[in-house]
């Protein structure tokens, strides 16, 4: 199978106050196209940092990340925005929806930045709303929805631009176990039915079991 993501000797350091912290210490890994990988580790282990670097949200100090033959370090700000827009779909623990926009508008947002005409946007968002089971919540704002529904909106937003990689940073972290399972079902569906590569950061072994493979990280290094 083709390698979707190859990470080689990745190092990311940052300063916390006056202390230099090595968040990622020489990490190498590869993830195949259509794989469902979970990354586990305690808080502060560097698992979220790894996810953010793969998603192009942050810069790293040395090493290499290749995604679909694209060298992430070589991209400028503009190309990085395009990369996030076209290749990546993010799902966050705290949903990160825009509170003033309705479910439909939140899902529509990436399409607006992609310059998709209004008519196409409407049919696409309706299709996605149905796929995540929120057609009745279309005109509701985040505060009018439950946590699970909000996360479904976030998943819809992650899917709308047809990305090849979904990055989930503790997507079930704020949800009760039943809702969390529903979200996991949805992620599995995306992975199995739509062939998307899914990388999920979690510290919950229950949730990690949904994945094909689990990578363990401790103190910025892969331990298994």
């Amino acid at each position: 199978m083709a390698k979707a993501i190859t990470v080689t000797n990745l190092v990311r350091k940052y300063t916390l106050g006056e202390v230099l912290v090595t968040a990622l210490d020489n990490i190498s890994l590869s993830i195949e196209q259509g794989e469902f990988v979970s990354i586990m580790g305690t808080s502060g282990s560097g698992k979220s940092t790894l996810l953010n670097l793969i998603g192009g949200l942050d810069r790293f100090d040395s090493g290499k990340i290749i995604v679909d033959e694209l060298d992430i370090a070589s991209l400028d700000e503009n190309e990085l925005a395009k990369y996030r827009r076209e290749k990546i779909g993010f799902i966050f623990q705290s949903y990160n929806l825009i509170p003033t926009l309705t479910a439909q508008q939140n899902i529509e947002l990436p399409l607006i930045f992609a310059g998709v005409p209004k008519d196409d946007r409407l049919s696409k968002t309706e299709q996605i709303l149905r796929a995540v089971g929120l057609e009745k919540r279309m005109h509701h704002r985040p505060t009018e929805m439950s946590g699970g529904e909000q996360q479904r909106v976030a998943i819809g937003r992650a899917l709308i631009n047809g990305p090849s990689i979904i990055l989930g940073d503790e997507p079930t972290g704020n949800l009760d176990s039943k809702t969390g399972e529903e979200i996991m079902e949805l992620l599995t569906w995306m992975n199995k039915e739509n062939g998307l590569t899914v990388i999920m950061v979690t510290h919950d072994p229950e949730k990690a079991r949904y994945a094909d493979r689990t990578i363990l990280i401790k103190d910025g290094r892969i331990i298994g």
Partner: protein
Amino acid sequence: MNSSDIVSFVLVNLKRMKLRVSLTVLGVIVGTTAIVAMVALGVGMQQSLIRQFNSLGNVNELMVSANRPSANPFEGQVKNVRIDDKLIKEISRINGVKSVVPMINIGNVLVKIQSHKASNVVIQGFSKKETPKISRGSLPKRDDDKAIILSNKFGESFDDKTPLSTGDLLGKQALLKVSRTLDDGSEEVRQIRVRVVAIAEEKGSKADYSNAYIPIGLAKEIWLWQENKPNLIKRQGYSSLVVTVNSPDYADSVLKKLEAKKLTVFSMKQVLDSIQTSFKVIQAVLGAIGSVALLVASIGIINTMIMSIYERTREIGIMKAVGASNKDIIKIFLGEAGFIGLAGGIGGTFLGWILSKVLSALAAFYLSSSGGGNGSPISFIVPLWLAVFAVAFATSVGLIAGIYPALRAARLNPLVALRHE
């Protein structure tokens, strides 16, 4: 990002902070109002001065004289060229020239209408091509008609000090008495009968009282008789001409050609042009004073935008995470700042226009009650160019004020922005 999406983004975002945006817009309104009212005062002053100026003379007219001041102060005037009928013909062929009329003024004329006498009247000749503007009566058909046009307040300048309504003199017979001195020192008097055919328009100057106008042919005949020199025009020529051009646009080119013929030319348009130039400076200075208020308002825009970016940091992070480019972020925030400028500009222009109307009315009221005559010298006029300029200027100020906040928003690290509470 499509421009229609930017507009809807901007409007939605501004709606979220109604009070703050309204107050910021209010600041821009005050600034724009100040600029509009100040420049309107300048424009009003300019237009009232031009109006007065136009009543004194016609910008289509060039006064051409054969004499010019000599370089030698003891010599007085020197004569360069002789203005004869041949030169007049040449001048009338210059492109843009409508008419060329010799200036013939006959002084010291006694005008007698019925039993009323007016002495020391100045009579000017006019051509039927360039007649004085009349308020009543009708113009003579030919240049040698025995007709006279009286100035507007001629009725008040009779020697017997009984003011008459000039209008009552219309259609009456008038007797012109002119005299010349013969070679032997004796005085010869000639009387010409003319009919009052029209009354001139009011000019607002002394010429309203003791001037009268007769057709040029008649004037020339009287002048030649009075001067009493054979071949006067061939030997001496006329002392001056009035050259009328088709439109003020021709005034400068015709003036150059006349000066090339060594004639001395006085152009009302040239004087007017220099007045216009100084008024442009005055308007710019008044506008600059008004701009101070807009400058203060622009600081308000910067403040509002920075506050809003601080509050929306997380949102900016979200937009970046889902693929907004730095350019998209810049467009959104520049759009918001520009819209504040535009709204303030439109409001301020409207308010400035209303204020101008009110101030003009107040000025007219106070000046007329203190005996200011017709046409208030202080008026506030908002021409279309000023309105367009004010709106465009306020919008630009908004955009410029938005540059720094927009760049600040665009440069936010998405990860840091997402963690912002």
